[in-house]
């Protein structure tokens, strides 16, 4: 039974409200070349910020329209799907759209000072153009309902990400090799994904996700579809940095400019996880033995391994940004674990952790960048004692650190609680225990940061001054958000439940 769309745009849409899904993409996409075209440094930042803020406004408007479980189908150029490209907004991706655009809009005021100190002035226009393209790509990956369109948007965001990471070369030349390594692995991942799409097209003759799902549901799986599943999971797994495929991530996040690390850590891997969610639950049927076996016996152990191995490596780092990068790999493990449970609570845990980890990691990377602004780098021996010289920045880092551990009263607690609940529901009490134990490792690495910041004397030769207000305010918005969403779960958990319901039951009009 297909669910009727909330708003069906059959002819060329006339009102602004009907055009929102496409404007979501077009606004930042057009703003990027405009920046380069004007070439004026004074206009660059305002245009970037305006584009991001407009996108945020649109995504909130979209979320409000689909919050009750309906969906919006937008046909590009008036060509009806499955032949035309369709943008399909439901609770799951509207939620992600809000996350990505909100984080971008909060990070941009922070980026102004941070980028000015880390990237050469003459590169600023191009830097912000790349930033907007990356933002467009991520939004596009999430909003589109067309399989090949996902690939195109993945590549738009990836190519601009490589350039953004390489922009850190002014401070450390290893940013270049980090970007190069990511380019090689990212391209292999995206190409694997496109092979998977090719196999799906072979088997079903369509590229529209809803249409593919319908045909798989009708005709069942065969070996081509299984191969497609494997290629898509591996390809997107590379993009999402699922444990053994995470090798590009630590170097990339360490050497990229701080604002870029904050933005990517909070959004890029999340968009890839969303694609995996969408394919596993909406396109392929998770109850197919092949898929559930692959998830249970391959991805689940890897997720658990990520939680421990990456956390363990994070404990021994001596650079705050690199430590945060490894912790990201571990946190992605929790999200993948939620997927492999194949239950509604599990998917809810994944989606809510996407959001909570996004704001937590954004706050931590912004804090690391603010410390690096004054200390010259984010090595522990450079930032030690900063609790005294930069009390506001340090306090925000500690709050976000508590959320990373999952202390009650913070956003991180909510997602881990739901994850443990989901594991127990399924009777996997050992997995639930492992989640709790791996959180203890997080206690260790967050404690090391606390110790460095508060229990040591400040290092010689650092500037003893609080970070500028334009960096502090975004940092504190994120830090306070981690506390706020630890108490008010209506917005995050409620939306995640609706989204998970939609993914599993097929709000997308796919399966029933």
């Amino acid at each position, binding site marked *: 039974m297909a669910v009727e769309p909330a708003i069906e745009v059959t002819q060329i849409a006339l009102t602004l409200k009907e055009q929102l899904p496409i404007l979501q993409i077009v606004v930042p996409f057009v703003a990027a070349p405009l920046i380069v075209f004007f070439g004026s440094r004074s206009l660059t930042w305002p245009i970037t910020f305006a584009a991001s803020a407009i996108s945020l406004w649109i995504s909130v408007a979209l979320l409000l329209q689909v919050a009750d479980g309906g969906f919006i189908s937008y046909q590009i150029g008036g060509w009806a799907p499955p032949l035309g490209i369709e943008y399909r907004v439901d609770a799951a991706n509207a939620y992600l759209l809000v996350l990505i655009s909100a984080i971008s809009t909060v990070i941009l005021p922070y980026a102004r000072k941070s980028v000015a100190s880390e990237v050469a002035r003459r590169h600023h226009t191009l830097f912000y153009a790349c930033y907007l393209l990356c933002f467009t790509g991520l939004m596009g990956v999430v909003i589109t309902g067309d399989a090949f369109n996902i690939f*195109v948007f993945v590549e738009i965001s990836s190519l601009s990400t490589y350039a953004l990471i390489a922009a850190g*070369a002014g401070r450390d*030349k290893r940013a270049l090799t980090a970007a190069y390594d990511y380019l090689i692995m990212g391209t292999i991942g995206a190409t694997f994904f496109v092979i998977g799409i090719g196999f799906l097209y072979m088997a079903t003759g369509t590229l529209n996700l809803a249409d593919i799902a319908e045909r798989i549901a009708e005709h069942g799986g065969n070996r081509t579809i299984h191969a497609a599943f494997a290629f898509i999971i591996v390809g997107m797994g590379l993009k999402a940095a699922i444990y053994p495929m995470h090798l590009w991530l630590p170097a990339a996040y360490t050497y990229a400019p701080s604002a870029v690390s904050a933005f990517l850590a909070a959004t890029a891997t999340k968009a890839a996880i969303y694609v995996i969610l969408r394919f596993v639950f909406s396109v392929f049927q998770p109850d197919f033995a092949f898929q559930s076996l692959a998830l249970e016996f391959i991805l689940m152990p890897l997720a658990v391994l990520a939680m421990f191995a990456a956390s363990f490596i994070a404990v021994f780092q001596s650079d705050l940004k690199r430590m945060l990068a490894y912790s990201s790999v571990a946190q992605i493990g929790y999200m993948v674990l939620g997927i492999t449970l194949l239950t509604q609570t599990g998917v809810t845990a994944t989606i809510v952790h996407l959001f909570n980890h996004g704001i937590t990691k954004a706050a931590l990377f912004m804090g690391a960048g603010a410390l690096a602004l004054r200390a010259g780098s984010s090595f522990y021996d450079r930032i030690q004692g900063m609790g005294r010289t930069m009390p506001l920045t340090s306090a925000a880092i500690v709050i976000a650190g508590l959320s990373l551990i999952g202390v009650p009263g913070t956003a991180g607690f909510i997602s881990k609680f739901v994850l443990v609940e989901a594991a127990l529901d399924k009777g996997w009490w050992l997995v639930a225990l492992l989640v709790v134990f791996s959180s203890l490792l997080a206690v260790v690495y967050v404690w090391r940061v606390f110790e460095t910041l508060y229990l040591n004397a400040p290092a010689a030769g650092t500037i003893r001054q609080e970070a500028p207000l334009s960096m502090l305010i975004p940092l504190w918005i994120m830090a306070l958000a981690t506390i706020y969403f630890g108490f008010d779960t209506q917005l995050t958990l409620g939306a995640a439940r609706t989204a998970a319901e939609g993914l599993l039951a097929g709000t997308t009009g796919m399966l029933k």
Partner: protein
Amino acid sequence: MSWEFIVGHLPYWLFITLMMTGLYIVVAKGNYVKKIVGLNIFQTSVFMLYISIGKITGGTAPIFPLDLEVDPETVYSNPLPHVLILTAIVVGIATTALGLALIVRIREEYGSIEEDVILDIEYRLTQHENAVHGDAMGGRA
């Protein structure tokens, strides 16, 4: 495996061979430019896979006659995979261009485009950092 099976799947054998060749070059070669070449071969194999999907036995080029009077007997090949691959080729060119640009910058900074030389320089940088900033795991682990 019958003879028909082998001959009938010729594009796929080519696709697999090219794909493996490309991936092998990316993994095994230490020269950064050669890695990009390998990546290109790998991507080209996927283009071939897509284009072969579009072929329909006995099908002709999917172009309508000028008078638009289509003979219902005519079988047309599927043009959609070709269109998709046009997009993918553009993406491939952008990737190659960006990769080569990065290599130019790497050569400026490191004075080499050989992986072992660069890894060696980075290893020494990390050793130095560990000596200065405290003994801890670092590097590209």
